[in-house]
């Protein structure tokens, strides 16, 4: 299953709900384009909901990092929501868990963005 991506806005935070795979050729490009689109619109607060992402590879992890740095360089913040164990473990192995601001519930995540 490739990546499905939908967006919504809650209290000024753009939430991208992702499901499926974020891998080379299957989701990485979609994610990159979605982040680029939000960035071009001046969106500063982005929450990536990874709850239904069942597979991610090194390319997908790299895409998360690139999204994080891209939004940060534009003065915004990108946070992660609902990591499953697979993704949690991969972010631990790659030491990226210390880089990302990871949230476990949506309300807390939304409240954590600057107003």
């Amino acid at each position, binding site marked *: 299953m490739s990546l499905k991506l939908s967006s919504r806005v809650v209290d000024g935070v753009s939430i991208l709900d992702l499901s499926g795979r974020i891998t080379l050729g299957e989701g990485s490009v979609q994610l990159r384009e979605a982040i680029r689109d939000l960035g071009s619109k001046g969106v500063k607060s982005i929450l990536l909901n990874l709850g239904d992402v069942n*597979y991610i590879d090194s390319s997908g992890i790299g*895409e998360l*990092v690139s999204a*994080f*740095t891209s939004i940060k360089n534009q003065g915004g913040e990108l946070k992660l929501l609902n990591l499953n164990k697979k993704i949690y473990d991969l972010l631990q192995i790659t*030491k*990226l868990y210390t880089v990302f601001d990871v949230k476990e519930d949506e309300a807390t995540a939304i409240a954590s963005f600057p107003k």
Partner: protein
Amino acid sequence: MESVGRVEAAAEQLARDAGLKEDEIFRVTMAVHEAVVNAVLHGNAYDPDKRIHAVLERTTEALIFKICDQGNGLKPQEIPDPLAAENLLRGTGRGIFLIRSLMDEVNFRQLEPGTEITLIKHLNSTKPAA
């Protein structure tokens, strides 16, 4: 990239047939995925005239995956450490590191031309999550 999915699916089935737990199956499948992606992307550089050769083997003691490309060769010792502070925020460069983290043994052999990477998962051990 069609070959990635085929080898990955075969690796998953081999791991499942060997009775590995779900998290171990994921680790094996992902490592094989990364190895084949590396072979196609960095080894063969997407050249349609170059082939990937994959051998998947189950012995009484281990699962063994050999992936060969026909590229210019790989020097694993020259791959930058993705955990180093200066590399942590790079968008690429984690594939080989992940393979090493997910499998019990990883070996490289230079071919003429190309690179062979061998991934080994022992069947009597469970590598703890890092």
